[in-house]
């Protein structure tokens, strides 16, 4: 199993039946492939709808029906279309139960950086800043390091997306949660030691007294 699949499988366990969720592209979106039996989530899309899914047949193809990544999609029965202001009223208003996003850096204060690397072409912000501030729970899904560079830091070194909003970090090696403003190591992947996590992590963290093995 590759890292992406490990992370996506672990993310999927965080969803409860009926959750309204907004997922970033890549690993977060992949997580819906591993939803536990009996758990269905309602996917919200920034461009103005919820309860969408991928195209499954040719006759549903409609150029006016895309998701926020620009892919053609189907808004299922029970779903609804709305305009951009309502879409972000939903986000800012706290109606999204969970958002799952990737990150370039996360730090021990719950700060997130995922929109800009100075000196490089910037794709932009899109709906990311609003989502992280507005969603009830913010889950970061990412590989533990980037080409050997540490990503879980004391303080983000590149421009931030939001401050103090990250609730949980899910990686292929470990799972952290922020509790009372402190980063807590909750789970490690089979075979990964706490010492190894310490070596790969700049941020300060405590180890949960009931440290578990990641089950995927």
């Amino acid at each position: 199993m590759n890292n992406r699949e490990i992370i996506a499988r672990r993310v999927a366990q965080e969803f409860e039946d009926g959750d309204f969720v907004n997922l970033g592209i890549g690993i977060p979106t992949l997580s819906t492939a591993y939803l536990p039996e009996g758990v269905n989530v309602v996917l919200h899309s920034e461009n103005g709808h919820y309860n969408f899914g991928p195209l499954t047949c040719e006759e549903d193809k409609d150029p006016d029906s895309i998701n926020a990544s620009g892919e053609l999609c189907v808004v299922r029965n029970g779903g609804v279309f709305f305009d951009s202001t309502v879409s972000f009223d939903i986000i800012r208003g706290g109606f999204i139960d969970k958002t799952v996003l990737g990150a370039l850096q996360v730090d021990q204060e719950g700060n997130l950086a995922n929109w800009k690397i100075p000196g490089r072409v910037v794709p932009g912000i899109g709906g990311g800043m609003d989502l992280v501030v507005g969603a009830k729970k913010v889950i970061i899904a990412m590989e533990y390091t980037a080409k050997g560079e540490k990503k879980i830091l004391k303080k983000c070194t590149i421009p931030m997306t939001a401050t103090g909003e990250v609730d949980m970090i899910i990686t292929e090696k470990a799972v952290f949660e922020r509790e009372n403003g402190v980063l807590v190591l909750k789970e490690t992947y089979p075979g990964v030691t706490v010492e190894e996590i310490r070596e790969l992590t700049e941020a300060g963290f405590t180890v949960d007294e009931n440290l578990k093995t990641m089950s995927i």
Partner: protein
Amino acid sequence: MAKIISIKEAMGMIQDGMSIMIAGFLAVGTPEKLVDALVEKNTKNHTLIAISTAYPNKGSGKLVVNKQIKKAIVSHIGTNPEAGRQYINDEMEIEFVPQGTLVERIRCGGFGMGGFLTPTGVGTEIEEGKQRISIDGKDYLLEKPLRADVSFIRAHKADKNGNLTYRKAARNSNVVMATAADITFVVADEIVEVGCLDQDEIMTPGIFVDYLVQG
């Protein structure tokens, strides 16, 4: 009351340097006919207000490729490499705005409000130059209204009074952008007689619409 005009008449009202709101999300909901006509007219130094610079060959991105945009106020440029190139080479200025903030600033511009307070962007680069205001212990940024000289709207159906409906995800920024420009141009898939739209289904009341552009 909305008037029906030709695309040539519409283009006659657009001049160099005007600010232009172009509705659509990754070109879905963008009136391509108006964008194409503006590319042909080749006016310059426009300020583009849009959710993104879309694609090089689709939506508002075509104006970027044709070097008609001096400044873009957008949330995203990642799908248009030419926008990235012009930005890096200082050929085009970009003001990045979080998407929710962008559409709400436009709403303020359209509806006579002096701005709004949002928690989005507090403590980030977006805060630079803005007032931070604390309300009951929570911090917000004061975001100011945004208007444009003209807006380009794509509807599904329009009646001859300018009442509009939209289809599916093509609604996106059309609803709000129809309210916030001095001149609102609409291209509809279909123009119908007054009375042919179900009054309960109208999404943009015609009072916001200046011109329905034909052909």
